[in-house]
Each structure stands twice: as C-alpha cells, then as structure tokens.
C-alpha cells in the first residue's frame, strides 16, 4: 500500500472516531464562524468611525452608537473564542474517553493471554499516551480545517458586494495558497516525515547511550561516546537543514501571498483614490469607509490558513498514534468462547488429546500434540526452559486461548462447551507474579470468596503463613496494601496469593513458578504451605526448579512443543 493511501486511511479512521462528539465540533466551528462575523462587525464600525473622523466629523458624541457596536463586537469575539476553545476541548475529551473505554473492552476480549504476551508498559502507554496524542487533532486541527475554508468565505461574502477587484485579488490568491503549499508541501511532507524519523532515531540513539552508560563504562567506551554524540547530532543537523530549506518554502509561500495581497489591495485602493485606477467597484467610486473596512479585514483573510499550519504537528502526532491504536482494535480475538454446560462438581479430571496451539500471527506452533491426562487428585509437574510453552498450557486450561487443534476436555466435556465463569470458579492459581489491588488486605482476600467469614479469613492467613507478618501490619487485615501492593516483600505478596488460593478452596490448582524470586526462607515457607494446599486437589505445576515440584506424582518436560517424561541429571 502506498504511503498516501495509508495516510488517507488513517485520516479516515480518525474522522470516524468523532461520533456523538460531532455536535461539539460543530459548535466549535459555528462559534468560529460567528466570531468571524463579529470581526466583520468590528471592522465595519472601526472603518465607519475612522472615515467619519477623516471627513471632518471629530465630535465624539456623533460616534456613540458606533462605539457601542464596536464594544459589542469585541465582547462577542471574546465570548465566541471562549466557546470555540471549550467546545473543541469537549469534543476531544469525549472522543478520547470513548476510545479508551473501547480499547479497555478490546483488551478484555483479547484476554489475559494476549496481555501476557505483550509488554505491560507498551500496552499501558498505548491506552494512556497514544490516546492523549489525539488531543490536538480533535480539539484544534479538525475544527480549524473547516474554519480555514469558512472564515475566508465569510470575509469574501462581505467584501464582494463592495468591490470586485479586491475580492478578485483574494479569490485568486486564496486558492493559490493551498495549491502552492500543496505543491511545495508534497515534497516537504515526504521530507518532513524523513526528518521526523531521523529525529526519532537520534533520540533513540541518545536514550540508548544514557541507558547503556553502565555497560559502556564497563567496556571503557563511555568517554569516547561524547564525541560521537556530538558528531552524530551535527550530521543530523546538516541533513535536516537541507530538507527544511525546502519544507519552509510552504510557510514562505503563505507569508508571500498574505503580504502581497495586502500590498496589492492598499496600492489598488490608493491609486483608485488618486484616479490612476478606475475599475473594481460596482457603481460609485471607492469610498474611504470601504477602503478602511477592506484593509482591516485583509490580514484576517489569511490568518485561519496560517493557524492551520501551526496545528499541523498535532495532526502528524495523531496520525502516528492512530496507526498503533488501530492495530490493537483490529487484533483478532482469540479467547475461548464460553459454552453453557455446567461443570459437574469435584473431583476434576483434565485431558489433553493431541492439543496444538498456534498464536495468531505466528507460523510455528508453540504446542504441537500435547497428550496428558490429569486424573482427579493427581499432582503433575511440567518443566521446560522459558519460552518452551509452559504458560501456553495454562492459557489453554484457563480458556484464555482456544486450542488450535486436538481436544482439551474436563471430566469428559470439551472445554469450549463449559460455562467459562463456572470453570474459572473451580480453579485456584498462584503465579510467579501476583497482582494485588488497591484496597485493604481483606478486600484482596475476599476476591477469592466474597462470603468468607472472619474465622475463615484468619484460617486462610494461618494456612498460608500470612499471620506471621499480619501482626506487623498497622491495621491487620484492614491495612491498605495500596496500588501494586506497595510496602510488601515478594515473599509476603506470594503468601497472600496463597491465602487467596486456600480461601477459594477450588478442586483444581494451577501453579506457575510459585516460588520464583523468593529467598530461601520464604521459599521454604511457601513450599510447605503449598504442599498442604495441594492435598486432595487436581494440581498442575509449571516450574523449572526441582524444589518447587512438590513431590509430584509425575514430572514431565516440554520439549519441542510436546510433553515427554523428564530425564533427570542433564545439564540445565
């Protein structure tokens, strides 16, 4: 696809986001146009007064009503400018709010499997910064596009009945401006894009340098890099300025037409008064009022176009962001659809038969033919290096991805026919990275079982060795553990996760490297508690640590997308 159709597509997508906020945008445009009319009124009264004074009437009292109207025009302009700015903002805020909600819903549908496979920082930046990057486009650029056409028309509408020659100057130069700008601009836009890219590269290089400073120091490279940095920046400047010499022609063109048409208008009007020129009016000769009126409006005629130019950057930014936002919204949803068969209660047997998994956009399957029967009450550990597909097994079991081939069944019922909420209800899991939510410890535990009594909560805390540090927390169970579980160590967070699993008391227990990142002492405590938690449940453990295998009945290994019995003693 050519870059032009691509950018047209992006522009179309951006416009399609407007939706119900169209009324705010319309209000912004309307108040902009009305502001234009108020400006015409201002010019009209100003010219009236000046023309009167020049013609000899210098009594202030004679201009009382004109001054009143002038004041009205000024106040109107101010009020309308306020309305225009605020409604543009409103449109932008509404659009962004809706888009963010849509992205969140999309993420929800894409599911945890998708979120795990992408960097959290990138996804959150997409939902925060990239959405914010659309602000300038909707709040200012989009209304200004209409105004850069509408406002000159409004002015023309008032000038044409007075003098066709001046109107002609405007009419001829006005379309020339965008035309010339487009001619210069097409090359300049391409140049601009390259420049933008070069600048991004330069920033990336600098970021690299700063982030890698410690590494550079270790290799004794850090001092030499200052010189390199300065050379790279200089080379960038020389290249960019070559490009900009062309790109700035477009602003020169705009400035040229704006200046020349004012000059032409003034010279034409002056020469008309002197009798040197004798055309342009409809009937009577040019009056001083008309001349002043036209001269006040002349600079305003080109102003909207120039303002559009200042918002061009906002457009670029929005276009860049839209691509990434669109990519997320167009992402294929791969979650297991929910069925309606209720799970027949405990105990639970899980069977994988020739199960395959291919992630969307990948050619190589992660799992190719996994066979496993996890009998009720059985403990199975699965080993394998990171990236071998251990987490993929979990994602399938939890229904975060559908199987690409083969059958995954629970108590003989295919997983896609099970009611998903019911199925998730019968699973407890402890992963290597537990997320605690803003709120009290009690809130976080109650997630697992809302109806839990105080005794049950305390029992779970005892079972999971939470009690040991519970007493040291300022508010006991009611301590705020805050966003991202601030103030707790990894071991403590993991024990809270365990307490949650104890409370849930589910027939299936999934453990994903539950003791990674723990010190020896915490690991011992957690393992001891886990051993008790495993009693009487169907358990699947993913780990590459021997200690965390918890006396599993069988130890399997993921090799090349298949499960094979683990051979001990090889080099890890």
């Amino acid at each position, binding site marked *: 696809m050519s870059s032009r159709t691509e950018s047209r597509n992006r522009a179309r997508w951006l416009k399609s986001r407007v939706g119900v906020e169209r009324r705010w945008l319309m209000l912004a445009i309307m108040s902009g146009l009305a502001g234009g009319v108020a400006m015409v009124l201002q010019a009209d009264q100003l010219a009236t007064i*000046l023309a009167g004074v020049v013609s000899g009437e*210098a009594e202030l009292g004679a201009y009382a009503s004109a001054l009143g109207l002038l004041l009205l025009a000024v106040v109107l302009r*101010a009020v309308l*400018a306020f309305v225009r700015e605020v409604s543009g903002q409103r449109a932008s805020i509404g659009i962004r709010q809706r888009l963010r*909600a849509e992205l969140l819903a999309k*993420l929800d549908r894409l599911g945890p499997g998708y979120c795990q496979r992408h960097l959290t920082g990138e996804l959150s930046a997409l939902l925060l910064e990239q959405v914010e990057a659309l602000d300038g486009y909707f709040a200012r650029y989009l209304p200004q596009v209409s105004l850069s056409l509408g406002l000159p028309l409004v002015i023309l509408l008032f000038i044409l009945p007075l003098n066709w020659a001046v109107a002609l100057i405007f009419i001829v130069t006005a379309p020339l401006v965008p035309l010339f700008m487009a001619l210069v601009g097409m090359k300049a836009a391409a140049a601009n894009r390259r420049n933008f890219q070069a600048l991004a590269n330069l920033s990336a290089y600098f970021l690299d340098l700063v982030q890698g400073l410690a590494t550079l120091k270790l290799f*004794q490279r850090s001092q030499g890099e200052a010189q390199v940095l300065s050379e790279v920046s200089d080379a960038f400047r020389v290249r960019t300025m070559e490009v900009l010499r062309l790109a700035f022609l477009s602003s020169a063109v705009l400035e040229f037409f704006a200046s020349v048409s004012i000059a032409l208008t003034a010279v034409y009007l*002056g020469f008309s008064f002197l009798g040197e020129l004798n055309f342009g009016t409809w009937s009577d000769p040019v009056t*001083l009022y008309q001349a002043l009126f036209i001269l006040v409006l002349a600079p305003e005629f080109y102003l909207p176009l120039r303002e559009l130019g200042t918002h061009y950057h906002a457009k670029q930014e929005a276009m860049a962001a839209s691509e990434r936002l669109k990519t997320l919204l167009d992402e294929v949803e791969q979650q297991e659809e929910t069925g309606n068969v209720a799970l027949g209660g405990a105990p639970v047997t899980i069977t994988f038969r020739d199960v395959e998994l291919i992630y969307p956009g990948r050619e190589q399957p992660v799992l190719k033919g996994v066979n496993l029967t996890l009998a009720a009450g059985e403990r199975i550990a699965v080993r394998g290096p*990171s990236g071998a597909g251990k987490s993929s097994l979990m994602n399938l079991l939890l229904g975060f991805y559908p199987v690409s081939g083969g059958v995954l069944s629970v108590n003989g019922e295919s997983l896609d026919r099970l009611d998903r909420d019911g199925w998730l209800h019968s699973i407890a899991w402890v992963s290597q990275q537990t997320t605690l939510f803003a709120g009290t410890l009690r809130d976080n535990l109650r997630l697992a079982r809302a109806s839990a009594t105080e005794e049950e909560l305390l029992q779970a805390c005892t079972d999971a060795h939470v009690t040991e540090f519970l007493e040291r927390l300022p508010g006991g169970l009611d301590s705020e553990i805050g966003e991202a579980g601030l103030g707790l160590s990894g071991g403590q967070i993991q024990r809270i996760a365990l307490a949650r699993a104890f409370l849930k008391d589910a027939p299936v227990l999934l453990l994903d490297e539950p003791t990674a990142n723990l010190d020896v002492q915490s690991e011992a405590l957690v393992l001891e508690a886990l051993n008790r938690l495993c009693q009487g449940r169907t358990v699947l453990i993913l780990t590459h640590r021997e200690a965390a295998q918890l006396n599993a009945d069988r130890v399997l290994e993921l090799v090349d997308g298949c499960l094979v019995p683990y051979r001990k003693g090889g080099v890890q």
Partner: protein
Amino acid sequence: MKLLWPYIRQMRAHIGWVVLGSALGLLTLVASIGLLTLSGWFITATSLAGVAAGFNYFTPGAGVRGFAILRTAGRYGERLASHEATFRLIARLRTWFYRCMEPLRPARLNAIGSAELLSRLIADIGAMDNLYLRILSPSLIAIVVVAFVCGFVSIYSGALALIALAGFVLAGLLVPVVGYALGAVPGAQQSRYQSQLRLRLITLIQGMADLRIYGGMARAQASVEESQQSYLGTQVRMGRITALVNALILLIAGGTLIAVLVVGVSLVHEGALEAIELAMLLFCVLAAFEAVSPLPLAYQYLGKTRESAARLAVVAQSKPENLFPASGPAPSSPGAIQFADVVFGYGHGVALDGVSFNVEAGEKVMIMGHSGSGKSSLINLLVRFWDPDSGVIQLGGEAIERYTEETLRRQVSVMGQPVQLFAGTVRDNLKVGNDQAPDQQMMDLLERLGLAQALDGKGLDYQVGEAGSRLSGGQRKRLALARALLREAPILLLDEPTEGLDRDSAEAVLDLVLNYRDGQTVLFITHHTSALNRFDKVILMDQGRVLEQGSVPVLLADVESRINQLKSL
C-alpha cells in the same frame, strides 16, 4: 530563572545563530506592522488628496511593496536561522548533559530511577530547546516590538502611547501570568491523576489473569474509569483556563483599540492630532498585538521547561566523586579475587553481610543463590559501581581502591543483568567489547553460541534494533555474552548467562565460557545446581551471607553439605 541559567549559558556558543534567528523574527514582525501601518496611512492620505493634487505615490507605494517582500523573506530566513540555532543547541545540550552524566557512578544514576524515568529525562533535554524557540525568542521580540511601537506612537501622542503600552502589558504579561497561576493547581492535579490512571491501567493489564480467576474484573475496570474521569475532569478545567486567557487577550486587544479611538478622536477634535495620523496609529496598534499573542503559550512552556530543568538539575548539578586515583599499581597477580568480611547495603537494609571468600587466578567459580541473595551486589562492588561499607576487596592482588579506572576496567569483563545492547549492527555491539576483534573471531563466536543462524543470513550486519529489540531475550543474552568473551581480561563475570536457554544451548554456553580463554578466572552466577560438577569451586549465597563455600568435589563428597541437600530437593 536560576534553574534555567545553565541552559541559557549553553546558547553562548551559538550566539550568532540565536541572535540572527531572533533578529529576523523581529524584522518579519516589524515589516508586518509596517505594511499595515503604511497601507493605512496611504489609503487615508490618498483619499484626502483626491484626484486633483499631484500626490507623490511612488515612495509609499514602493514602501508597501518593500515591506511585503521584507516580510516574506524575513519569515523564510527566520525559520531557517531559528531552526539552525535550535538544532545546534539540541546537539550541544545533549553532549553537555552526557558529559555531566558520564563521570557519575552508575549507582547515582540508579538512584535517579528506572528506565522510564531515564527516558523522561531524555524528553526533558528535548524540552529544553523550547527555551529558545518558544520562550526567549518570542519574549525578546515582543519586548522590542512593544518598545518600538510605543516609541513610534509617542511621536504623535504620548497619551495614545501610554494606552497602547497598557494594552500590551495587560495582554502580554498580566493575563498570561494570571492564567499560569490559575492553572497551577489543576495542572498539578492533572499529573497526579495521570500517574494514578497509569498505575491502575498497569494493574489491570498485569493482573488480568488474577482478576479473571478470582473475580474483580468489573471493579478494576470501574477504578480505571474513575481515574480517567478525574483525569479528564482536570483537563476540562485546564481547557477553560486556556479559553479564558485567549478570550481575555481578544478583549484587551479590542479594548485598547476602542480606547485609542476614543482618546484619538478627542485629540483630533482638539487639533492635537491629524485624522490621517489617527488612522495610521490605529492600524499600527492593531497589527502590533501579533507580537504579544504568542506570549501565553510561552508562559505555558516556561512552566513545563522549568519542571524539566528541575528534574535535570539532579544529574546536571551532581558533583562527580573522584573515585579513582590518578595513578595506581598494576595487578600483582592478575585474576585473583579476595573478599574479606565485606558489609554492604544500598542505603536501606543489608545486601552483603560479612562476605569473605577467596578466588585464585584461573579458577572457575559458581556463585549460587536466589535473586536477592546478594549475588548481583558482588558484581557491583567488583566493578566499583558501589563501594563496600566495611571490609576489604582485593583484585589481582591489590586493594581495589588503589587502581586507576582504566587498570580496574581492563581486569574485568562483565555480562550483567539486564543485558544492555545498543541500536546498530551485531558488529557494532560486539566491537563495544573489543574494537580490534576480527570479523572471523566474531562470527566464530556467534556460531558456537548458536546465534549465527538466527540473523537472517545477514551475520554481523544484522541490525539489532533499539536496545536490541529485534532479538529475542535468549538471543540478546547470547550476544551480550559474546561481547564479554571478546574482551581480553583476566576475570570474566557472568550474571545468569544460561537463564532461559534450553538445555542444549545452555550446555554450549557453558562449554564456551569455561574454555574460551586459558587461565581466565570465571565467576558464574546462577541459581541452578545442575552444572555444578563442571566448576572448581562453589559459593552458596543466601540473604547476603555466604552459606557455604569450597571445592566442588569436596562438597559433593560430603553428604551433609548444603549443596547436596539443595541438589536432592
């Protein structure tokens, strides 16, 4: 202003371009005002002169055309000059900042915070070019234009000049300052709500699996929505302030015009001013508001730029500690390492609690322990990114503090965690380790690490992307390992080089590092016991202490040893 002073000083080196850019900006504006003023005078004067008299229209006609051309050329030149100046300043600021930062200990930089904060600092440096382009230049131009216009008006009437001055000062100074003050509280709220929103988004994305399994998805979504509401709410308030400032400036411009008109008409009535002159002055004042209209934006940028400068000051104003002596000994026994009762903490808690061990030159040592056991602190101390609180570290037979930086660095080759690569080719990255290494040696290493096939046949010319983003985690690790191996040093320090590799790759890595250089001391940090029997010595760490250390064969023979207990778990 004190905060911004260092940055203003940086402009001195490029003062020619800076001044040229502003001068051309001034010229453009003056031409623009001149064009309208002269045009106003011209048409009023010609209308009075009428058809009969012999009015000299050549001079003003030429003047009008001259201003028009000046304005066009001025604008073009101003854009070129100001961008030339800006790019030169960016280059200079970055180099300057890098030079401020380079001598600081990485420990200090770590205190600044995460990679995210660091990238904000980079953005802050970028924001400093606003100082010239959007703050200083427009402000200076506005001041000169206002002085110029008021001076011009005062030739005809002092009263009108005062009115114009009052209008300019109100619109250019008072209103923006009021707007800035009004925006301070919602502005601070805005950034607070923004970080709250970010935190909640991260919780939601990271914890989605937990939320699904334990319930609470709806609540997490609601809390994100609530943050977004508050965040956008502050934006509404900020938007209103911006709109108010814009409206007030229009009101003041209009009000000034009316005041000039009212007073001017009276002056004409009294005969103190010609009607033609009034028309001319009116156009002059009207056009001159163009000079003050960019000022509110300049104030907004001033606020942001000051915040950036404050964040940068942490680095820019740090005094580098003179860690390394100017001259020092050469290592007397290269490759040997000794820790004697080393105690060390990062300021909170104890990371190493009385660690002692001895490594002979050429020994292959495995350092075992969980994360947080103090393994990485050993590296930080050995490269002097930190110094111990007490105890003695000897390297190559001398106390580590006695070496010059160069002698110290030459003794140790490190592959740390996380792995840091640089945008560029594979070759560029390997040359960081040793810029004398021939291509053949590099390719050979890549092959032995199983990396050569992964590079799309491009070999050493493969572009690794920003911070190595076009490589997988395992590939990044192996490339960093190759970089460390290429460096000729008596000691090789490796932090979990096999973590995340499959069994065969891990085996290949081990073979390579244990035999790559004859007599090289290897410190191999890991938390797996499986490769233990290939090492001479093991040091078992837990919670900042050495739990057990000794010769591998001896410890393996002892059934009571912790290592054996660990292996049997």
